[in-house]
């Protein structure tokens, strides 16, 4: 019996809950480590990046306004749906990152478990990072963490799934929305993740995923005046990093610099904290 010819998937962008091709009509060839063809990914343009920011901004108030319990359940749902597509992710990670399947399995498991870990944080952030402040006067004073807004994320280049989840989950768990640029050479697991996101009750626009060239897309995101923060995790080129930080200063973006390659380590709270503002409210007592 002849072996069945597989039905391949068209890998597209994920913007505002939909899966468009790049408006530029461009694609680029994605290969495995040995140079064998895997797919043509959309080559995102400046316009795609801007559309993604618009979608993220539109989704932001609703996502931040959802209850923390609700956000936690959505993140947990992402883990549930990922678990169901485990084999696909193992295959993609294995081919993209060159891991033997045993290692790829553990990477995918860690990525799923990371969603679960962050899901649990959703309704604990405010109590952990906020509180009342004992001011010296008749005032009730409290500080609460709030999401920064729209966050541009440059996903790690090597760790195309675990690294991606490790930078994405801490951004959205607190109510930010994200525009993420996937690993340039290994974008396929990220696109499959966006298919998971689309079926996980995550409102459209909360995460928007672009695939393309880091050097082409990131300058537009760093300079975009409606982006509040940028995570440079996947910017490996020092000169580009400097250029992006300079552009980010135009609207005082919060910048998280690249700092780790070890995505298996305990994440801690640092990434969540990077994309939070602290609001402090005063009210007189007894007047």
């Amino acid at each position, binding site marked *: 019996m002849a072996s069945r010819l597989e039905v391949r998937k068209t890998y597209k962008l994920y913007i505002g809950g939909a899966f468009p091709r790049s408006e530029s009509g461009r694609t680029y060839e994605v290969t495995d480590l040995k140079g064998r063809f895997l797919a043509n990914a959309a080559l995102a343009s400046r316009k795609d990046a801007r559309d993604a920011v618009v979608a993220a901004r539109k989704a932001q108030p609703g996502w931040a306004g959802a209850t923390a319990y609700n956000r936690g359940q959505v993140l947990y749902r992402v883990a549930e749906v990922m678990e169901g597509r485990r084999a696909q992710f193992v295959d993609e990670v294995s081919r993209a990152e060159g891991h033997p399947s045993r290692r790829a399995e553990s990477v995918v498991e860690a990525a799923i478990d990371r969603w679960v870990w962050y899901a649990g944080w959703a309704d604990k952030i405010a109590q952990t990072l906020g509180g009342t*402040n004992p001011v010296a006067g008749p005032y009730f004073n409290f*500080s609460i963490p709030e999401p920064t807004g729209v966050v541009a994320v440059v996903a790690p280049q090597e760790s195309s799934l675990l690294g991606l989840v490790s930078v994405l989950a801490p951004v959205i768990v607190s109510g930010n929305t994200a525009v993420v640029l996937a690993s340039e050479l290994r974008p396929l697991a990220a696109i499959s993740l966006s298919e998971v996101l689309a079926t996980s009750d995550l409102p459209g626009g909360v995460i928007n995923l672009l695939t393309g060239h880091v050097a082409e897309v990131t300058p537009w995101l760093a300079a975009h005046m409606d982006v509040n923060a940028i995570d440079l995790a996947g910017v490996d080129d020092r000169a580009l990093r400097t250029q992006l*930080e*300079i552009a980010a200063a135009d609207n*005082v973006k919060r910048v998280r610099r690249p700092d780790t390659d070890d995505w298996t380590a305990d994440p801690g*709270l640092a990434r969540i904290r990077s994309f939070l*503002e602290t*609001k402090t409210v*005063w*009210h007189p007592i007894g007047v």
Partner: protein
Amino acid sequence: MPTPFEYAPAPESRAVVTIASSYGLFIDGEFTDGTGGSLKSINPATEEVLSEIAIASDADVDRAVKAARRAYTRVWSKTSGAERAKYLFRIARLVQERSRELAVLETLDNGKPIKESRDVDIPLVAAHFFYYAGWADKLEHAGFGSNPRPLGVAAQVIPWNFPLLMLAWKIAPALATGNTVVLKPAETTPLTALLFADICRQAELPPGVVNIITGAGDTGRALVEHPDVNKVAFTGSTEVGKAIARSVAGTDKRLTLELGGKAANIVFDDAPVDQTVEGIVAGIFFNQGHVCCAGSRLLVQESIADELVGRLKNRLGTLRLGDPMDKNTDIGAINSLEQLERIRHLAGVGDDEGAERWTADCELPAKGYWFAPTVFTGVTQAHRIAREEIFGPVLSVLTFRTPSEAIEKANNSPYGLSAGIWTDKGSRILKMASSMRAGVVWANTFNRFDPASPFGGYKESGYGREGGRHGLAAYLHVD
């Protein structure tokens, strides 16, 4: 028309403070000469020269950073939290002991009324050191993981509006967390920082832990761009803040910025009127409006706008402008001629763009820099006086009809430092407070500060917090 009761002059004595004819740079525990020339610090209320101040050259900046590095490596990083705490408690006590001297000097150098420097600035300075002193040996309980570590040498550049208070906001948390500092006060208000150097001497703080260097923009630039600083903390204009963010791009320097603001002070029709009028005055006329979080945009619900503005003008008519050293003075001098000209310019733009100017009827002293309390009505969101930070005693009044319109207008600014809400309705306070894209929200009060209360902005008002547990993060490697 003669008023029935005239105030007699009630000047505070300046005998409590001795000002040297010139000051050098406080580096490595002693005053040394600068090599970048000098500038004069003047009393903005009289234009009298108070002292000649050294300008730190690039070489002087380097010397100060080296001193701070040495002190960090050899002494301060090996000093236990408990010992650091005791130094800071000492400093807090010394500030309290010398509070009148510091208040008088602050008023002479800055132009702010003595009642503000005496009752607000200096007590808050002492409180700030006392607060952070207590954190020094408790950092592992601050919620930043089990092993919070200092960054190293902090470069700190502060503004002229609250000179010693901004020094305290910078130095207290930096020292508590185990960093050493090089601090540059503003060129128009260096004197209390230089007196603080004497407090460091009295506290027997190890040499080099605190270094105070004076100068203008070039000195500040050399300091933040010095390759051996680990941390830059800046309070000042958004424009300079952005330039600093660009200058540290690509480095490993950590940065916190506390920048400008254009706060909305929102008054609903059910607000208690007298209390609100006092709050509006405190919001924009405190410290001559030289406050980054000043309530410079008054948003009034349309139905009460005429009445409220009328009452506000009556109240402003009773404010006393004049000699900052007089204990009855409410409005002191504008800090510098440059700032006065900026205020005059933007007020002129307000006229040109069609807003209606009202100025309190008060006599301005012949010498010094003065600007009478001013209210613009008929202001729209497009007007520059509704968008740009004036940093002076100038209030822009806008109106709204519904809460959602108030939210929209309040947040329609690249800034996001503070906001005010005046209403008797609790649920509305909470809704408005949560809708403000601003770091500090004062509900039925305004311009309150406390060392336990985190302060800092959203958006282009900067990042990082000063004060409270949150303020520690700016000076620590955290998990």
